[in-house]
């Protein structure tokens, strides 16, 4: 059943992501992206990465996307004006590149990883708990963890500085 659920969430996620990119109204995009992230969180749960799954909801859906929503509302962004024709004339080659990219990527995966790992590691069940990730964070990744806190502080200061009307 979990397998079916996994594919279901994948499909929903893919649809949501396409919705984000393809529709013209930024607010819908934000809502779509929140939905996509919820699906992703569900996939993390299915992969038994509980902590990351909760973080996905808490941080991505709960904090980052609220910021996006705020900014969209603050700027009162209007839906994009439709462009005559399917694609902007000087952008058709982007599409070709994206196509080449994804096909190459899939080819590579098909070629290289198919032989590897078709099912999850048996001994890793429940590895994604808060305690496990926390232990890794505070032992072998302590320095990066501290640096990350510094990064957040810097971002905080930078954001306040940038967003102030007058400096």
């Amino acid at each position, binding site marked *: 059943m*979990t*397998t079916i659920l*996994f594919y279901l969430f994948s499909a929903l996620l*893919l649809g949501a*992501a396409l919705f*984000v*990119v393809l529709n013209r109204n*930024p607010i819908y995009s*934000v809502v779509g*992206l929140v939905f*996509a992230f919820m699906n*992703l969180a569900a996939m*993390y749960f299915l*992969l*038994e*990465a509980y902590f*990351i799954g909760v973080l*996905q909801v808490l*941080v991505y859906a709960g*904090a*980052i996307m609220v*910021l*996006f929503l705020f*900014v969209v509302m*603050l*700027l009162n962004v209007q839906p*994009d004006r439709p462009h005559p024709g399917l694609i902007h004339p000087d*952008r058709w080659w*982007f*599409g070709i*590149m*994206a196509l080449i990219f*994804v096909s190459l*990527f*899939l080819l590579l995966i098909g070629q290289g990883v*198919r032989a*590897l*790992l*078709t*099912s*999850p*590691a*048996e001994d*890793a069940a429940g*590895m*994604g708990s808060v305690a*496990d*990730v926390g232990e*890794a964070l505070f032992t072998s*990744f302590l320095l*990066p963890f501290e640096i*990350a806190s510094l*990064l*957040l502080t810097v*971002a905080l200061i*930078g*954001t306040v500085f*940038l*967003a102030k*009307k007058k400096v």
Partner: protein
Amino acid sequence: MVVPLYHILAFAGLLFTIGVVGVLFRRNAIIVFMSVEIMLNAVNLAFVAFSRYHGNVNGQVFVFFIMTLAAAEVAVGLAIIVSLFRNLRTSDISEIRLMKH
């Protein structure tokens, strides 16, 4: 669960490509930014999948750091978009080309 790893990776690749398409085609800076987030999350998914299939928690730690980074990045990035909007009255990145002139 019997999902093969390469299915998840291929799916992550598709998701990433959707993000790329968003970055390349959309003119609204905020949407572009959101597409970048999609790309990041595609990578995160691959990390978590690898972590699960290899039985190694490090992949999840990476995701943790990517999330931290994304939070910082979004805060600063959105602040930039807001101040750009304040100055140029637009969030259309095809109009934001001060470096050109």
